[in-house]
């Protein structure tokens, strides 16, 4: 079974530019999550989709971040305009059930550097 795929793996952009991160979950997984790790800090929740609906977006830092999941398949996370503090590693995860009793499958992440 293919895993969770994220791209790009790395992105370096200038402050004020726009970046779009993409996540392809495991086929058939209705639940998709976005997390990020800022340097030296713990991994923090951003939001949770069930199919194409946002179930919980309480972790989104501000309105510069926009997540979509059209058709309940892949998801994108757009940062516009990017700020220096947005630098970090963005992880996507998916699961068949929200309870996650079998855990979530994470992608390898996108390392975003804003300069």
């Amino acid at each position: 079974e293919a895993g969770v795929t994220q791209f790009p793996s790395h992105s370096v952009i200038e402050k004020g530019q726009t970046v779009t991160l993409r996540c392809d979950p495991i086929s058939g997984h209705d639940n998709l999550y976005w997390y990020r790790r800022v340097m030296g800090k713990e991994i923090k929740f951003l939001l949770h989709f069930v199919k194409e609906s946002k179930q919980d977006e309480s972790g989104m830092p501000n309105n510069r971040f926009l997540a979509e999941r059209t058709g309940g398949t892949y998801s994108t996370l757009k940062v516009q305009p990017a700020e220096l503090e947005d630098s970090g590693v963005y992880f996507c995860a998916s699961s068949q059930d929200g309870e996650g009793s079998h855990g979530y499958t994470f992608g390898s992440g996108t390392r975003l550097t804003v300069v």
Partner: protein
Amino acid sequence: EDQVTQSPEALRLQEGESSSLNCSYTVSGLRGLFWYRQDPGKGPEFLFTLYSAGEEKEKERLKATLTKKESFLHITAPKPEDSATYLCAVRASEGTYKYIFGTGTRLKVLA
């Protein structure tokens, strides 16, 4: 405020030297405690889920236990391939499936 604290931050062991990693949590209502392993440049990889005090799970050289305030990840006779960062996460409030992660324990096992 819900919080997860892991200790130690880093641990170096000789091959075969058993030890334990700690995850202390403060949550309003635990709805699952999760252990993950993360290798450099990779995403977290699921190991265990624990739901109630007294529960234990085992996988190869790893054993996870849970009390009302903390969880331990016991590593028995570790091998160099067990070197990784071990992450603990909890799910707290009802109605949300978000994890609250600790900062992890970086484990290095020397041959």
